[in-house]
């Protein structure tokens, strides 16, 4: 595609003006003459036409082709819109339907501030009671957990104490045994030979026979 064709296409697309296009194509007689011709036709096309438009029986055409179908009245979209509007009105209005003691009452009450206040107070009281119960339950649970933990701690400490005492006693017994062993050894090594020498000495032997 030549540059001049691009310029001409840009003019056709309305991207550049007539004068800009004419100036750009000044040196190309072929494209300039095409532009002049196109401008003339464009001007012709812009002129309105006033020739009378003939009447054509399009109704008959339609009846022949599509006339078998009757326009079906689609009632459900209207019904849907109507019901939605009714629901909106009922929900926004002070209209009230109440069932009390087996009786159904439809009321249009605008001044029910006192009732609302009562409801609010009652709901607040109910909320307060709920909160108190919750706190009480939480406290009880906490206490139970604490006492259970204390019992566990007591058991642990008692068991530990017993273990320590048993270990101490065992150590003491072992120590005593070791002492006794040591004493016995000392007696065997020192006291026993001396006793023997005394028993078999002549002085002592005479005394003993008497």
């Amino acid at each position, binding site marked *: 595609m030549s540059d001049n064709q691009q310029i001409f296409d840009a003019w*056709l*697309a309305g991207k550049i003006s007539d004068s800009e296009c004419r100036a750009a194509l000044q040196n190309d007689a*072929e494209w300039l*003459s*095409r532009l002049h*011709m*196109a401008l*003339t*036709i*464009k*001007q*012709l*096309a812009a002129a309105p*036409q006033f*020739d009378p*438009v*003939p009447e*054509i029986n*399009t*109704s008959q*055409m*339609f*009846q022949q*082709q*599509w*006339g*078998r*179908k*009757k*326009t*079906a009245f689609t009632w459900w979209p209207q019904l849907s819109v109507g019901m939605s509007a009714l629901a909106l009105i009922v929900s926004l209005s002070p209209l009230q339907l109440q069932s009390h003691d087996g009786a159904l009452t439809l009321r249009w009450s605008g001044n029910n501030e006192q009732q609302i206040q009562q409801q609010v107070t009652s709901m607040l009281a109910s909320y307060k009671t709920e909160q108190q119960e919750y706190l009480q339950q939480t406290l009880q649970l906490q206490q139970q957990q604490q006492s259970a933990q204390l019992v566990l701690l007591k058991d642990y400490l008692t068991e530990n104490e017993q273990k320590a005492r048993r270990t101490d006693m065992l150590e003491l017994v072992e120590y005593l045994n070791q002492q006794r062993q040591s004493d016995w050894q000392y007696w065997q090594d020192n006291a026993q030979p001396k006793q023997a020498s005394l028993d078999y000495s002549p002085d002592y032997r005479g005394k003993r026979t008497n």
Partner: protein
Amino acid sequence: MFKRSDESLISKALDGDERAWQQLVSRYQSVLYYYSLRLMGDPDDARDLLQDVLMVLCRNLAQFRGDSSFKTWLFGIANYRAMDMLRKRKPVTDIDDIPEAVDLDTQSHEQQLSQAQTERLVKQHLTKLPPEQRLVVELRFYQQFTFDEIAVQLAVSSNTVKSRFYAALDKLKTQLEVHDVRQSANF
């Protein structure tokens, strides 16, 4: 007033709503008629073409899928019918038989006169173009379709449309030059 879209009117017409059909027709009837008049160059032929296109439209209304705009689709039908009629018809009438469409009484300046004369000649010579070229000029300038849209309507490539368009401009220029030479020779 809220204006219904073409698609909405078609949908209603397909449900049997004749008013929607009439509304759709009235939207495009005059455009189609002037298009036919320019292409055929004769009011009776233009009327026949208009009737033919509307009948085909009515018969094929359910075929519109909305892939392109309704106008593009409608002109696709119109182009096909117009080309068919133009090919069947004998060559166009002589230029001299075509009445002058421009009223020059109110134009006083020489330049305006010359311009009006050129426009009249161009209008006359447009009817002498080959049908394919005439159709492209019509769709590009009068219906203001883009080359791509015209290509879709005529089921040809965009480059083919462009080459037909440029050939039409060149041919018109040549015809006008020949006309000028003949005028000069007469003097």
